[in-house]
């Protein structure tokens, strides 16, 4: 059974890779302005915040939890940045404070989930509203834009076509992938995601791991908020509204099971890129925004449906197995 799932997963990631290469080749040949350095740079830059948050979201979802408050944490962190900047603090001091705010947001989620045993879906829907609300309380309708040019230009700077922000993503991706796929902790995360009770009795410190996953998710959201704020040179309470769905979407499209216990980081990163490439190419090809949303939605529905359809199909074609399970 496990081997079967692993095979499905590999097949799915293979498919995403084929799609990614296919769409990129199609866009390079058929869409004017796609295959040049500055466009590739924009495209990569546009995916940075989603990619950052998707790294930790992958871990959280593999552990059979979810964090829907990431974009609100990002917003709160932006608001804190804007507020403290207006108060005259140096930006170098504000940035670690922002990361701390993210950590606290994550710890709050983590405590509610692990201490009170509440489902993370419910908890983070609550904190989704709570953190965003807090962001508005902090900064109101202000937009703080007079940020230091040294940092705003750093956020959009690139080495050749590769933005610095993407280098940051790549480094953190390697860290996250190593953690998930090559350490005991990673195996524990997968184990507790596929069967929490069994993992607990096997000695996995379920609650502790979950708590720190939420903290990591919060820190990553505030790191994304720094990239976002400097990139757009605008700190506002409504920064990143709706990004949580883009993040979850990319993670699911990347082949991570929404039920936990299965998924790989390379798959998720390819999915982030695929969504970015599709979006960029369709906009360049003057495809209307509605169609764009429709195409993205279609990809996502397919990503959730495909593994399950496969399972149904296998059951249909091997009736003796079905007979056994019924009797």
């Amino acid at each position, binding site marked *: 059974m496990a081997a079967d799932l692993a095979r499905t997963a590999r097949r799915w990631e293979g498919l995403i890779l084929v799609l990614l290469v296919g769409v990129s080749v199609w866009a390079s040949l058929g869409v*004017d*302005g*796609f295959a*040049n350095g*500055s*466009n590739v740079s*924009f495209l990569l830059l*546009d995916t940075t915040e989603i990619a950052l948050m998707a790294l930790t979201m992958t871990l959280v979802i593999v552990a059979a939890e979810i964090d829907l408050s990431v974009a609100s944490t990002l917003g709160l962190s932006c608001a804190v940045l804007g507020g403290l*900047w*207006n108060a*005259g*603090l*140096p*930006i*170098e*001091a504000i940035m*670690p*404070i922002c*990361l*701390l705010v993210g*950590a606290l947001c994550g*710890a709050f989620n983590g*405590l509610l989930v692990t*201490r009170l045993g509440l489902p993370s879906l419910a908890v983070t829907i609550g904190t989704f509203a709570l953190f965003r609300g807090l962001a508005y309380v902090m900064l*109101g*309708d202000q*937009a703080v*834009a*007079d*940020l*230091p*040019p*040294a*940092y*705003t230009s750093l956020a*959009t700077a690139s080495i050749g076509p590769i933005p610095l922000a993407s280098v940051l993503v790549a480094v953190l991706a390697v860290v996250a992938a190593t953690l998930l796929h090559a350490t005991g902790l990673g195996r524990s995360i997968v184990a507790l995601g596929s069967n929490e009770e069994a993992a607990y009795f096997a000695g996995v*410190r379920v*609650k*502790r791991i979950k*708590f720190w996953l939420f*903290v990591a998710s919060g820190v990553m959201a505030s790191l994304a908020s720094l990239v*976002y704020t400097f*990139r*757009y*040179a*605008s700190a*506002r309470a*409504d*920064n*990143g509204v*709706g990004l949580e769905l883009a993040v979850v979407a990319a993670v699911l499209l990347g082949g991570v099971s929404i039920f936990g216990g299965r998924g790989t980081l390379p798959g998720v990163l390819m999915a982030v890129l695929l969504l970015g490439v599709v*979006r*960029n190419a369709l*906009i*360049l090809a*003057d495809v*209307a*925004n*509605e169609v764009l*949303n429709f195409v993205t939605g279609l990809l996502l529905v397919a990503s959730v449906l495909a593994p399950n359809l496969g399972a149904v199909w296998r059951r249909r074609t091997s009736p003796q197995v079905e007979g056994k399970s019924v009797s």
Partner: protein
Amino acid sequence: MTTRTPWRPTALLAGLVLLTAACGGTTKSDVAQQSSASATAAASSAPAADPNAPLKQGLKIAFLPKQVNNPYFTIADNGGIEAAKEFGGEGKEVGPSDASASSQVSYINTLMQQKQDAIVISANDPNAVVPALKQAMAAGVKVVSYDSDTAPEGRDVFVNQASPEDLGRTEVQLLAEQIGHKGKIAVLSATPNATNQNTWIDFMKDELKKPEYKDMELVKVAYGNDDDQKSFTETQGLLRSYPDLAGIISPTTVGIAAAARYLSDSPSKGKVKLTGLGTPNQLRKFVKDGTIEAFELWNPADLGYLASYAAAALASGQITGAEGEKFKAGKLGEYTIGAKGEVLLGKPTVFNKDNIDKFDF
């Protein structure tokens, strides 16, 4: 199981914060100094304009509204596309379906890739779009803002509907007439960061300071986010919170339509006065059924039309965006660029049951 460890990294972070703060760093006042220094340095070398240059043929002009599928922008952008046809260019409308600050940026980048000659943009956030626009301008794309301005360094020319002062003040005057200069009033705006809305609201507040409005009180500015549902429920909320509300000003086409729909079905119909900015087609039935007495707007099709001509004049080298330069805008005649690169379309038009049938937009 988890309580002991969290404090260690927290303390570490706090230590780092103190360290960096103690070492000093970049603060708001540092940046203010630097930018004022660079502003004085940059104010010289502008290329000369040639007022007699002919409009280039085949200009590609892209309209980037706050959001697509917003009737107001559809009309404005169609006006602009119409103008582009007149001078032998090619116009198109692209844009995000949500009016959020950052979603316009990826469109600016792609328009630059498509080598458009000009981008005509209504900014969702005056600053978030500037880095991308600057890049586009450096690549030779001319930028005209219309409806809602960007920070001045992000565009060549701003085509303004009517002076914000006129709009803000006349809306108060219009409502005051309808409620007999007496009672509580509220504003139903779009998003809290919309540049144009906030400027108008400031002028409304200023107008209300005049003695003739001493019996009028602005009790709340609500935000409907240019979302129909949200504007509808915000209207509902206003009437609940202030049962003695005399009138609402909604300086946004989405807001006023939603508010009118709510009022027309409520017992407050005709009692709570509603005015603001709307399009005649959208509000005709509410004017006829007595929900709305009078409202105002500039002609959005003319706004897009004028912005299109301004973009073409820029791309053809007729103007550079400097004060005092003149250009011709087809059927609208000649315009002069004012201070800070602003061009004014003209005074707003007031629509009521006597004249509304003369307009179709």
